[in-house]
C-alpha cells in the first residue's frame, strides 16, 4: 500500500485554514440558534395551543429529516423563492435553522428538570411573569444546558462538512480540490479529518474549562 | 469442640493509606451469633466483605469450616476465581441494602442460585424456595416483586435467598438499619431460630440494643482493630476498656 504521509502533512495547513470556516459557521450558527431557540421557548411558554402545535410540527420535521436534505432544500429552495443568495449563506441558514430546533429541544428538556425552588420563591414574591422568565428561569436554564450546548457546537461542526456538497469551500471541499489535482484522496480526507477532529477536541476542552469556571464561581 | 464455622487469622485490608482492617482474628462457632460493633468507618462492613471475599483482603487468611477460603492455606497465593465462586455460597450474605433482584419475583430471587449455580431443575428449585419462604411466613407474597413488599418482608426474602444455598455461616450488614423499630425483635427471633440449626452468624451493627438482644458475643472494632471482645451481656455490663465504655456512653446517652 502506498501512503504519502508527506502529501498529507503538507496539506494540513491549507485544510486546517479551511477548517476555520467550519468552526466559524458552527459557532455563529449555534449562537443564532440559541437566540431563536429562546424565542421558541418563550412562545411555548405562552401556551397558545395552535402555536405550540405549529412549533411541535416544525421541530418534528427538522428532527425527522436528515440535515443533508435540509441543506439541499435551502440551497435549491431559497433561490426558487426569488432570493438571490450564495451557497454559503443558504448552507449557513440551513445549519442555523436545524440547530435552532435542536437547541429549543435542549431548552425544553432543561426546563422540565429544573429546580422548582427559585421559581416558587419568585412566585411567592408576586414578581411579574416577564421578570420571572428573564431573571429567574432563563439564566438558570442557560447554565443548565451549557454542556449540551457545547456538544451541539461540535455536532454542527460535523454537519458543516456536508456543505461541501453544495460547493461551500470549507475543509472537506478544500481537501477534495487538492485531491483532484494530486490524486491523494485518502491522504487529503485524513488531513480534513485530523483538522476537524482537532477543532472539535478543542471545543470540548474549552467547554470543560468553562464548566469548571462556572462550578468554581458557584462554589 | 468442633472447628469454628468461620475464622479469620490476622486479616488486613488497606484502602490507599487508610488501614481499614488491621490484623483481625475472629472465630465463630456453629450456632453462635457474634455482633461486630463500633463507630461508623471502624471496619465492620469491610470485615464482613473480606470474610465473604467480596473484597480481597491484603493480608491474612479466612477459614471456612476449617478450610482456607480465598487464599491458599499459608495465605501466600490466591485461589482461582472458580474455586472462590464454588466456596462462596457456603457463606450467606445479607446486604445492608438487601440488593434483591427487582426484575424477579420474591420466589425467583430465592430459587435463582439453585438453578444457576447448583444446576437444579427449575421445578425442584422453586419447590425448595417455596418451602423456605413458607418457613418465614412469606408463602402468600412469594409471587410479588421486591418493590411490592415491605421492608421487613424484603429482608426475609434476602435471608431466604442466602439460606437457599445452605450456608454454614451467615453475615448480616446492618440488619436493623432499614427496619421499623417494632420489627427489630422479630429479626432477633429469626436469628435465634437460625442459630438453633447450627449456622454461625456475624452481624455488623451500630444498634447496640439489637446487639445486646441478639448476640452471644461482642467484638468492638475501632479504626480497623479489635479493641475488646467477650460475652455480650457481661461485656456490655462491665466493659474492660475505656474505649468501649465511652462508645457505649456515646450511643446510649442521647
Amino acid at each position, binding site marked *: 500500500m502506498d501512503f504519502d504521509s508527506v502529501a498529507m502533512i503538507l496539506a494540513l495547513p491549507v485544510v486546517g485554514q479551511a477548517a476555520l470556516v467550519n468552526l466559524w459557521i458552527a459557532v455563529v450558527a449555534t449562537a443564532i440558534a440559541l437566540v431563536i431557540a429562546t424565542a421558541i421557548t418563550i412562545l411555548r411558554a405562552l401556551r397558545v395551543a395552535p402555536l405550540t402545535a405549529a412549533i411541535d410540527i416544525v421541530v418534528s420535521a427538522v428532527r425527522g429529516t436528515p440535515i443533508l436534505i435540509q441543506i439541499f*432544500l435551502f440551497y435549491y429552495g431559497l433561490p426558487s423563492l426569488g432570493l438571490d443568495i450564495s451557497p454559503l449563506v443558504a448552507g449557513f441558514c440551513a445549519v442555523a435553522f436545524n440547530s435552532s430546533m435542536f437547541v429549543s429541544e435542549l431548552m425544553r428538556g432543561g426546563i422540565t428538570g429544573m429546580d422548582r425552588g427559585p421559581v416558587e420563591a419568585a412566585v411567592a414574591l408576586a414578581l411579574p411573569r416577564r421578570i420571572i422568565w428573564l431573571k429567574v428561569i432563563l439564566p438558570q436554564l442557560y447554565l443548565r444546558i451549557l454542556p449540551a450546548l457545547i456538544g451541539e457546537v461540535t455536532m454542527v461542526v460535523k454537519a458543516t462538512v*456536508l456543505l461541501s456538497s453544495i460547493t461551500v469551500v470549507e475543509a472537506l471541499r478544500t481537501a477534495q480540490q487538492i485531491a483532484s489535482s494530486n490524486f491523494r484522496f485518502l491522504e487529503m480526507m485524513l488531513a480534513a479529518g485530523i483538522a476537524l477532529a482537532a477543532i472539535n477536541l478543542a471545543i470540548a476542552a474549552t467547554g470543560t474549562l468553562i464548566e469548571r469556571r462556572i462550578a468554581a464561581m458557584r462554589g | 469442640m468442633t472447628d469454628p464455622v468461620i475464622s479469620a487469622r490476622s486479616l488486613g485490608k488497606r484502602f490507599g493509606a487508610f488501614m481499614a482492617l488491621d490484623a483481625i482474628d475472629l472465630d465463630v462457632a456453629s450456632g453462635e451469633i457474634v455482633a461486630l460493633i463500633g463507630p461508623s468507618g471502624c471496619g465492620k462492613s469491610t470485615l464482613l466483605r473480606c470474610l465473604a471475599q467480596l473484597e480481597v483482603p491484603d493480608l491474612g487468611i479466612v477459614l471456612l469450616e476449617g478450610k482456607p477460603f480465598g487464599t491458599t492455606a499459608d495465605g501466600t497465593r490466591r485461589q482461582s476465581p472458580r474455586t472462590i*465462586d464454588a466456596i462462596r455460597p457456603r457463606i450467606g450474605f445479607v446486604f445492608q441494602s438487601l440488593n434483591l*433482584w427487582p426484575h424477579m419475583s420474591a420466589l425467583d430471587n430465592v430459587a435463582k442460585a439453585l438453578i*444457576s449455580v447448583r444446576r437444579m431443575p427449575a421445578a425442584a428449585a422453586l419447590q425448595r424456595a417455596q418451602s423456605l419462604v413458607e418457613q418465614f411466613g412469606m408463602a402468600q407474597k412469594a409471587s410479588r416483586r421486591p418493590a411490592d413488599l415491605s421492608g421487613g418482608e424484603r429482608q426475609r426474602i434476602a435471608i431466604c435467598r442466602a439460606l437457599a*444455598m445452605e450456608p454454614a455461616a451467615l453475615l448480616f450488614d446492618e440488619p436493623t438499619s432499614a427496619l421499623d423499630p417494632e420489627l427489630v425483635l422479630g429479626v432477633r427471633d429469626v436469628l435465634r431460630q437460625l442459630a438453633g440449626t447450627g449456622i454461625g452468624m456475624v452481624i455488623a451493627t451500630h444498634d447496640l440494643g439489637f446487639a445486646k438482644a441478639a448476640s452471644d458475643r461482642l467484638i468492638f472494632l475501632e479504626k480497623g482493630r479489635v479493641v475488646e471482645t467477650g460475652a455480650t451481656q457481661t461485656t456490655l455490663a462491665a466493659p474492660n476498656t475505656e474505649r468501649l465504655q465511652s462508645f457505649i456512653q456515646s450511643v446510649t446517652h442521647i
Partner: protein
Amino acid sequence: MGFDVSIITDNWPLFVQGVVTTLLITAIALPLGFLIAIPVAFMKLSRFAILRAVAAFYIELFRNAPFLIVLYVIFYALPTLQVRLPPLVVGTGVLCLYATSYLAEIIRGAYLAVPRGQLEAARAVGMSHFQGIREIVAPQMVGFLIPPSTNMGIILIKETSVLALISVGELTYQGMVVQAATFAPFEVFVAVGGLYWLVCSVLSFAAATAERRSAHAIDGPRRQSVADSFLSLDARWRK
C-alpha cells in the same frame, strides 16, 4: 413558484426503492452495531487501561470526526489495501461502525445504571462475574437500553442520507437521480424529506407506544405546584 406534483408521482418507484434501501441498511447496521458495541462497552469498563484506551479512542473518533470524513477515509483506504467492495457494503459497514461507537456508550451507561449491589448479590450466592452480568445485570439493562437504541435507529435512518455521496442507492441518492433527470430539486427534496419524516415518525411513534406498554411501574399523578405551571411548556389542548 409552482410546485409540480407530477415529478413525485411520475418517479414514485425510485423513491420507494430508496426507502427500502434506507430501511435495509439501517436494519443491518443497528443490530450488527449493537453486537459489536457490547465488547467495546465492556472494554471501556475494563480494569485494564489499554483496553479502556482502545475503546475510548474508537468512541472519541466518531464523536469528534464528521461521519462523512470517516466514510471517505475508509472508502478511499480500502482500495489501497486491495479490498474492493461495492459502495453499499462499505457504506453499511461504516454506518455500523458509527452506530457501534454511540451504542457502546449507551450500553456502558445502562450497565452503570444498574446498582453495583445487584452484581455483588449474584456473586454472594456463588455466581461467577460473567454469570452475574449475564443473568442478573443484563436483564435489568434492557429497560435502560431500549429508548436510546430506538433513538439511535432514527439517527441512523437520517445518517444513511450521507451514503448518497458515495453513491449508495438509498433514498437521498434516488432523490439526486430524479433531480438530475427532472431539474426540479425543490419538489424532489421536499418529497425525499417528507419520506424520511414519515419513516422516522412512524418508528418513534411505534417505539413510544411499545415503551408505554412495557412500563409496568406506573407513577401516580405528579403534584402540580404553581412553579410547575411555569416550568412546563406543553400547551393544554383542553383546560
